[in-house]
């Protein structure tokens, strides 16, 4: 077992007694793409800033590459950072922005030029060296920020919602670029986002947070197929997992909530279904339509139907599903692998 590249142990950060993050423990292997995911205010940015050294933890230890950096300055941690606003220096040209850190660290000029050229080549910015950030489009600025992050070849790169200022179309293509860049350069990336599509599609490992606590750490498929608790179940996936009170679906002992994903639900013939619901809304997405259903004791019940459907609200619909697709949660919202038999 090799030492994890980034190791965070029981880290806590509080602001004037208010909760920032608490009990954060993480092990990140070298070369991993880790997404910190969660709703706004969940502490994911704080966690990233603790890793970067822009904030110092009140408790706990952080080590990077085997070195304890809990109290080290950001510049001593051998990392680069991409900010949400890109944080490009408006008075410097693209080339000067990218080379900023190299200049500060007094890299020889010839080497600086070589690294600059390479970084601009990778990010497709050759020819823009002398432009000021103000003369670039949003996507180009974003690439300058990326170029600045990769130019020094730091082993760890922290990204704080780098795509949130781009339009949807650009976001999808930059997402691929960042992923490719990361695997080509072998960087370890810690990536903060509130967009689960970004987290699920890019990351090898997703850290889902809520209210300053880690809810679940795992591969994207683990979060999707084995949510650790009801929060994860309701956060991950589009549409999120439906939760059914055990009272509404009896037969499973020791279970408080039962989770069910839309793709595992099928519409049943009258009298054949396991739950009888009312249609509450239809959401047409092109290849499929999400039909929202309401039933007492359930939240977020949705069935996905192919093509365009226009079912009037209030219509009765019976649904069926198999027991194998159910997820069980106890009274604390924690996942149960098997319900106790009987009731």
């Amino acid at each position: 077992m090799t030492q994890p590249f980034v190791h965070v142990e029981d880290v806590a950060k509080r602001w004037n007694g208010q909760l920032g993050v608490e009990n954060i423990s993480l092990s990140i292997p070298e070369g991993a793409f880790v997404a910190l995911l969660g709703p706004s205010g969940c502490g994911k940015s704080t966690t990233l800033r603790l890793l970067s050294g822009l904030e110092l933890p009140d408790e706990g230890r952080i080590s990077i590459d085997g070195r304890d950096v809990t109290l080290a300055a950001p510049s001593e941690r051998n990392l680069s950072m991409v900010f949400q606003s890109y944080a490009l220096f408006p008075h410097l040209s693209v080339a000067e922005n990218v080379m900023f850190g190299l200049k500060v660290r007094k890299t020889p000029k010839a080497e600086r030029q070589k690294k600059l050229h390479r970084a601009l080549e990778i990010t497709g910015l050759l020819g823009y060296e002398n432009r000021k950030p103000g003369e670039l489009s949003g996507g180009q600025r974003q690439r300058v920020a990326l170029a600045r992050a990769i130019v020094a070849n730091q082993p760890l790169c922290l990204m704080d919602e780098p795509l949130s200022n781009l339009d949807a179309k650009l976001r999808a293509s930059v997402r691929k670029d960042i992923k490719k860049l990361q695997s080509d350069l072998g960087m370890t990336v810690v990536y903060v986002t509130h967009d689960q599509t970004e987290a699920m599609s890019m990351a090898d490992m997703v850290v889902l947070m809520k209210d300053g606590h880690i809810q679940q750490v795992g591969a994207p498929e683990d979060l999707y197929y084995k949510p650790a608790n009801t929060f994860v179940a309701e956060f991950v996936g589009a549409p999120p997992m439906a939760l059914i009170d055990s009272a509404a679906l009896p037969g499973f002992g020791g279970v408080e909530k039962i989770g069910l994903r839309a793709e595992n639900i099928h519409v049943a013939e009258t009298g054949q279904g396991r739950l009888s619901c009312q249609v509450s809304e239809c959401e047409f997405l092109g290849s499929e339509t999400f039909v929202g259903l309401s039933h007492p004791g359930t939240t977020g019940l949705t069935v996905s139907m192919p093509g365009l459907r226009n079912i009037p609200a209030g219509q009765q619909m019976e649904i069926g599903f198999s027991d194998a697709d159910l997820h069980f949660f106890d009274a604390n919202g924690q996942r149960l692998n098997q319900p106790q038999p009987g009731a």
Partner: protein
Amino acid sequence: MSSLSRYIETAGALLLAVIWISPLVFAFWAAFHSTSDAVNFNLTSAWTLDNFRTAWDGAPWLRYFLNTFILVTVILIGQFFVTTLAGFAFAKVQFPGRDVVFILVLMQLFILPEVLIVENYAMVSRLGLFDSILGVGMPYMASAFGIFLMRQAFKGVPIELHEAARVEGCGWFGILWRVYVPLARPTYLAYALVSVSTHWNNFLWPLIVTNSPDTRPLTVGLSIFGAPENGVDISVISAATMMSVAPLLIAFLVFQRQFVQAFLRAGIK
């Protein structure tokens, strides 16, 4: 109705402009004519440069110009140095009592420099700077106005830029020098304009603290040159005045656009 009030406003503005510029116009007129022609407003009289020749020979003007130039430069450098560091500390460094100290600095704005003239005189003498250009400039270097201006400019710099520079390896001074100072350039320009014109024109304090032609700035030199005991010749005094104000006036006319833009940018940001 509204058009009438527009006319009144325009007329008022013109009137104020005429009142403001008339002494300058008269001085300009007098400087280029003989005294009798000047005071009689003899519009057809011949233009002459004799007054300038007389005035130039009457006092060590070159020395005065040099003194004033050194004075405003020394003050400006000192102010940039002090206000940059102080403004940065008040804007971005957390230290106990910061707000109290800042309010104390701002209170300096309430106090006219003339009130402190005796105390300043004693202080400059104690420091052994009496009758030196550094002594003339010293009391103005820690300018509360400048500190306030720089603090505001630095506060407007996005924190991400500060953090990005930190991650890239800059220390406090590196960040100040590479990020804050370049971004505050319009503010520096606007402040330089105010500072240079104030100290180019400053009279009372240099009059008191200087004692010899070697340190005397233009304003003091001009007043001694025009003092009644030397005989009052309006045209020659006007010529000397024109010489004194010319560099600043020409600089302003040439760089007018940049100055106004600097002020706008410094203000809006």
